[in-house]
C-alpha cells in the first residue's frame, strides 16, 4: 500500500510540470503613441485568441498562455529596452510593434537571446530579411499587395498610372512596387508625386495631376489616415476622375464614411468576411467579447498571430523552448487563422497570406477578388 502511494505520488509529481506548464508570450507593442492605431486593435485580437485557447484548456489541452505586456510608446529605443526585459523574464516568444523601424531596434536583443519575434502588422518584406532567422512578420508583404493591385489594374484595362508615395517609411513606398509590376505588365507610369506623412494639404499634388492631359487612368498610393482622406478629397475637388487604388492602411471606418468622394475607391487588405468564413466567426466572437465590431482587420490579424504561435508550439510537440518554437514556426504550413491560411514554410519569415481586393460601394465594403498573385511577378524586397 505504502509502495503504491509513493509511486502514485511520484507519477503525479512527474506529470505535474506538464499540466501546469504555461507559455509566456511577451508583448513589446505600441499601445500609445503614433503606432497605437495598429497595435491597440491587434492587442484586442490577441487577447481574444488567448482567452479562447485558455478556456479550452490551453494549447493542446495542457499549455496555458500568459501574456506579459509592455507598452513601448511607439518608440524604437523603448522597444529594444522592453524586448530585453522580456528576454530576461524568460518569455518564449516576443511580439514586436507594427512597424519595421522599432521592430528592427529589437532585432539584436531577440537574436542574441535566441527568442523568436513576430511583428504585429509590419508589412515591409525587408523586415525579416534584415532581422534574420528569429524575426517573423505577420502580414501580407507590401510587394505582394502591390502585385495584386497592379495585376487587377491591368486586368481592368487601365493603361496609365500615377503614384503618390512617401519615402518616410518602408510601408509608404509600396507604390514603387506597384509601379514595377504595372510596367512589367505593359502599363505606363506617367508620373510620381512625393508626400510627407502627416501632410495636411494635398492640393498642390492634386492640381498637378488634374492638369495632366489626358489624366492618368489610375492613381495609386499607400498613404493612410489622416493623409489618405485629405489626398482623396483634394484629388476629387481638383477634378481628378481616375480610379484610386490604396492599400490596407485605409481599411478603416473613415474610408467608408467619406460619402461620394470615397465611392469606387479600391484597396488591398488582409481579409474579407464572406458568409461562413473564419473572419465572420471572428467578428462575431469579437463583438461578443468587446461589445462592438472590430474597427479594423488588424484585430483579426492579431488573433492570427496567437494562432500561429499555438500552431508552432503544437508542431514542436508542446515544447515552450524558444529555439524549438522558432524552428517549428519557420516550417508552418496552412495554419488556419481568422483571415485565412498562413504559411511560413519556404519563406524567409514573411508569411504567405491571402490578399483581398475591396471596393467602396454605397459606403460599404464590396469584395472584388481574393487572388493569388503570380510569384514571378512579385518584386524583390527593396532595400533603402
Amino acid at each position, binding site marked *: 500500500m505504502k509502495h503504491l502511494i509513493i509511486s502514485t505520488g511520484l507519477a503525479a509529481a512527474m506529470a505535474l510540470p506538464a499540466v501546469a506548464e504555461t507559455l509566456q508570450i511577451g508583448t513589446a507593442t505600441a499601445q500609445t503613441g503614433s503606432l497605437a492605431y495598429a497595435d491597440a486593435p491587434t492587442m484586442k485580437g490577441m487577447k481574444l485568441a488567448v482567452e479562447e485557447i485558455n478556456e479550452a484548456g490551453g494549447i493542446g489541452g495542457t499549455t496555458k498562455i500568459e501574456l506579459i505586456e509592455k507598452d513601448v510608446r511607439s518608440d524604437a529605443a523603448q522597444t529594444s529596452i522592453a524586448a530585453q526585459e522580456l528576454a530576461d523574464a524568460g518569455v518564449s516568444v516576443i511580439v514586436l510593434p507594427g512597424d519595421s523601424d522599432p521592430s528592427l531596434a529589437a532585432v539584436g536583443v531577440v537574436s542574441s537571446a535566441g527568442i523568436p519575434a513576430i511583428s504585429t502588422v509590419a508589412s515591409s518584406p525587408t523586415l525579416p530579411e534584415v532581422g534574420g532567422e528569429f524575426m517573423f512578420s505577420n502580414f501580407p508583404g507590401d510587394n505582394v499587395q502591390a502585385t495584386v493591385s497592379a495585376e487587377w489594374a491591368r486586368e481592368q484595362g487601365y493603361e496609365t498610372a500615377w503614384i503618390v508615395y512617401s519615402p518616410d517609411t518602408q510601408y509608404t513606398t509600396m507604390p514603387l512596387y506597384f509601379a514595377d509590376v504595372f510596367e512589367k505588365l505593359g502599363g505606363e507610369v506617367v508620373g510620381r508625386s512625393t508626400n510627407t506623412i502627416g501632410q495636411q*494639404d494635398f492640393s498642390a499634388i492634386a*492640381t498637378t495631376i488634374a492638369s495632366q492631359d489626358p489624366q492618368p487612368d489610375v492613381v495609386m498610393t499607400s498613404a493612410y489616415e489622416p493623409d489618405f482622406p*485629405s489626398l482623396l478629397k483634394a484629388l476629387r475637388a481638383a477634378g481628378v476622375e481616375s480610379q484610386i487604388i490604396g492599400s490596407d492602411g485605409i481599411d478603416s471606418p473613415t474610408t467608408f464614411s467619406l460619402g*461620394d468622394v470615397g465611392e469606387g475607391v479600391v484597396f488591398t487588405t488582409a481579409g474579407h468576411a464572406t458568409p461562413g468564413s473564419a473572419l465572420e466567426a471572428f467578428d462575431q466572437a469579437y463583438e461578443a467579447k468587446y461589445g462592438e465590431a472590430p474597427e479594423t482587420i488588424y484585430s483579426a490579424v492579431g488573433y492570427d498571430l496567437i494562432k500561429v504561435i499555438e500552431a508552432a508550439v503544437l508542431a514542436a510537440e508542446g515544447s515552450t523552448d524558444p529555439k524549438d518554437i522558432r524552428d517549428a514556426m519557420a516550417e508552418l504550413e496552412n495554419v488556419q487563422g481568422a483571415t485565412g491560411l498562413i504559411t511560413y514554410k519556404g519563406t524567409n519569415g514573411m508569411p504567405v497570406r491571402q490578399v483581398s481586393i475591396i471596393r467602396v460601394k454605397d459606403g460599404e465594403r464590396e469584395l472584388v477578388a481574393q487572388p493569388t498573385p503570380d510569384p514571378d511577378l512579385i518584386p524583390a524586397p527593396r532595400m533603402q
Partner: protein
Amino acid sequence: MDLFLQQTTNALALGGTYALLALGLAVVFSIMGLINFAHGELMTISGYTLMYAGAAGLPFAVSVPLAILAAMVAAVAMERIAFRPVRNASGATMLITSFAVAMILQVLFQNLISARSQAVLLPDFLSDSVRVGGFVIGVNKIVAIVATVVMLIFLDRFMNKQKTGIAMRAAAEDFAVARLMGIRANTVIAGAFALSGLLAGVAAVLWVSQRASVDPLMGFTPVLKAFIAAILGGLGSLRGAVAGGFALGFIEVYLAAFLPQEMQEFRDPIGLGLVVLILLIRPNGLIPSRVLGAVKV
C-alpha cells in the same frame, strides 16, 4: 498661367489656415511669454466635438459652433488648471508645462476614446468644387479663405475697438504698467486663452473638414506649423503671425507644385531652409513685435 493661379489659390487657403493657427499661439505668447504647445490639443478637442456631434445626428451648422465653443472652454480651463499656477515661473517651466498638458491629453484621448482615427461625418458640399471658366476651386478652399478673412477682420476690430482687446494690447506691451492702470491680469489672460481657443476651434473645423477624421495625435502637426509660422512672422506680433502663416503656406504649396520631381524628397528641408534664410535676413521675423524679440549681437 492657369496652373499658377490655381496653385496660388491653394497656397492662400493653406496659408490662411496656418495664419489662424499662428495667431492662436501669438495671442497667448504676446501676453504671457508662453508658447502653448497644447494648442494643437485644443484642435483635437474641437475635432472630437465635431465627431460626436455628427454621430449624434446634429446638423453641421450646429456642430461647428459647438466645436469652436468646446475649444474655447478647453482653452480657458487649461489656463485655469495648468498655467495659472506657473504664471510667474520661468519661460522654460511654462513651456514644459504646455508639453505635459499636451501629452496628458493625448494619452487620455487614446485611452478614453480610441487609439485609432475616428471618422467625422461631413456634408457632401464641402468636397464639391466650383468651376469658373477653366478654373476649378474646391468649396473647402473657398470656406478656408472666407473663414480666414472673417476671423482677421473680427480680430482687428476686437483688438482696436473692444475694451478687452485694447487691454490685451496694453498688457502685451507692458504687463506691469497695464496692471498699474487697473487692468486685471486674470481677465486679460483668460481673455487671451479664450481668443486662442476661438482661433484653434475655427482652424480645427477647417483642418478636420479636409481630413475627415480625428485621431489622438492630430494636434502635433498643426502646432508645429503654427510655431514655425509664428517664429517666421516675428514671435509675439499678431500681424507677424498672419504674415508668417501665409509665407509658410506659399512656400509649402509652391515647392510641392513647382519643384522638379527628383527634388521632391527634399521638399521639407528646402522649405525649412527658406525659413532659416528669411530669419538670417530678418532675425526678429517678418513683422517683429515692438517689445519682444531677439537682439542681434
